[in-house]
């Protein structure tokens, strides 16, 4: 048996799934619970973490998803006082009762526990398993929430993808595929509306829900990554469908990329072509994960040599 593993986005999506109208939700709308998603910058190095605040105006629970890639300096900032200070800076409301809960998955729980002990951090730790979710350390301060949590059944394969992945931290191809699926979805709207000359940055900003919370530098990095992917990796698949042209407002200004549609959306045949091309482009991203990168190849080669 393998320990259950998942990304921080999936953990946030699980929390979001608990703020709804469903009768067995932990944070039901009928009790006035609402959720705010923000990016938390623990230090000035530009690394951002999801911070999900769930509040009913009397109490607030701050959820922070963590995995083993977290830096210890960052983890030390995941404390109630620091978070409240951050929240104050953002002009968000602070309630009289609040609690910080770290959330992780089964595979990462031991390492996170060790990190917490090592750094002497007293924190509640909630763990998502393949069939349950339970506190590894601590509990909710509100007993009603503990009761609702104990009644939950969990199937992580069915957690709704309410928010897209943190593209800044995209470590696997699934994040990439979902991002590009979203990006093409935004492009489809413009295409059907017969709009042309769309700024690439506009399309990206509409594909990422919390885009405005990224710092300028991060936004620029993401735009460059997508721009390179569209111009290089996906260019063969998207040729004849869209073209990207570089545009400068003034001769001295930084160039921006503009997307133009070549095919006419009114022609029904073009719809099939466009859908096929998009699927092929997504397939290309999907199959990239199957290719052996030089690093992995060298490990496999070494192992084979050892076995010999």
């Amino acid at each position, binding site marked *: 048996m393998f320990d259950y593993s998942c990304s921080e986005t999936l953990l946030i999506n699980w929390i979001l799934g608990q*703020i709804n109208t*469903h009768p067995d939700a932990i944070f039901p709308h009928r009790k006035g619970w609402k959720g*705010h998603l923000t990016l938390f910058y623990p230090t000035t190095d530009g690394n951002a973490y999801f911070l999900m605040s769930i509040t009913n105006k009397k109490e607030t629970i701050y959820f922070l998803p963590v995995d083993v890639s977290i830096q210890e300096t960052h983890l030390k900032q995941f404390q109630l006082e620091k978070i409240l200070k951050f929240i104050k800076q953002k*002009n968000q409301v602070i309630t009289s009762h609040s609690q910080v809960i770290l959330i992780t998955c089964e595979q990462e729980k031991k390492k996170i526990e060790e990190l917490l002990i090592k750094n002497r951090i007293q924190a509640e730790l909630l763990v998502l398993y393949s069939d349950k979710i339970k506190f590894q350390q601590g509990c909710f301060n509100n007993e009603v929430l503990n009761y609702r949590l104990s009644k939950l059944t969990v199937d992580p394969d069915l957690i*709704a993808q309410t928010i897209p992945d943190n593209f800044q931290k995209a470590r696997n191809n699934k994040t990439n595929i979902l991002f590009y699926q979203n990006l093409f979805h935004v492009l*489809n709207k413009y295409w059907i509306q017969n709009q042309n000359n769309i700024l690439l940055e506009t399309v990206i900003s509409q594909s990422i829900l*919390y885009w405005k919370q990224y710092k300028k530098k991060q936004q620029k990095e993401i735009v460059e990554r997508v721009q390179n992917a569209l111009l290089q990796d996906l260019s063969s698949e998207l040729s004849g469908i869209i073209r990207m042209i570089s545009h400068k407002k003034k001769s001295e200004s930084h160039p921006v990329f503009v997307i133009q549609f070549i095919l006419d959306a009114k022609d029904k045949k073009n719809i099939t072509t466009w859908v096929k091309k998009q*699927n092929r482009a*997504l397939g290309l991203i999907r199959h990239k994960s199957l290719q052996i990168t030089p690093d992995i190849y060298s490990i496999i080669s070494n192992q084979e040599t050892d076995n010999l």
Partner: protein
Amino acid sequence: MSFFSPFYDRIQELIGVKQNFEEDFSFLQPSGNDHLVQFSLRMIPSEYLELSQYDQQHFFLLDLLEETGVEYQLDANGEFAIFTEKNKKGIKTIQSVMDLRNESIAVIYYFGVAKPCLQLNSSLMQSTKLTACYLNPSGLMAVSESLSGIRSFQYYFEQSSLIFKEPIVMKGSLKGAIVQDAYQNYCKQFSSWFNIIQLSGHTTDGSQGVMTIDANGKLQIDICRLSSFLIIVEKVFSVLNDKYRFILDKHINNWIGDQHKKSVTVCSCPVQVQLPYAIEFLENLSKTLTVGKKPLNLMGLYERISPKLWKIFITELNTANQIDLEISSQQILIFIHCKWSLPMLDKIENFLRNNIAASFESLSLN
């Protein structure tokens, strides 16, 4: 005074019917005096929202004229719009009143010969500005309570062999004395597949007119008092209005970006649809919903995001409205991001009820 009293007055004013005629049943005779009402979702483009109420309605009607060639004249108060069609001899063949008081639902009343009324209605429903409201089986049932009894009904359910290994088909129509019993039996025995798309019955006012209600939000009757007809119209309106209000309040994924607080707020959740019979070929269902072909006219992309879950992004080809779905074998989540996607939700609900079998979680949608 009911919500439809001004509508009643406006129709009376247009057609020129005197109260006496209305009361002694001679108002409506079988030839050429048919009533038709169509409930439709009307979508005011977001760029019109900053205009005054009157201008919004006016521009909406101009857009409708551009698309269909049908020119409705807006009243001075901006609440109703009027259309009259005359033949070569100058005789009025269709008289129509469009009630624009509700921000989402337009109620269009036609009076005249049934065939041209239906033709005009059909051409209006081709427009991207108006989409026929979907009345699901429970909505139709709620309306049927206002009739003196069910006289006939039509049902339609057809699964595809591309999606199910052993597809089920249950479609047909029934009329006559057996209808009441058959209806009760079908409801009990085949609750998941018994999908009513049309029913008809007599009104309770003794006029002997037969009213027919369609799943696509259309009500027709030949002989009836206008006042009795509007009582049923009001009932349908209330069913639809409650449904759309509930969706707008609870299910529009209005992530509110707050620049000042630098956060996004979620105060809604996706529509959750339970499937009584597990879908066997999820990829084929995803393909059906994204291939861009008739009758759905939806294009998009699908991706398997976990062993059990498929994510589908779809765009409506005529209106460019968008919706996201997450499909697993026994559950479908529908993410609606703006009120302009309501017609798409109707389209998806219609498809699921006709071709998959689905029960929507909320009472308002059941």
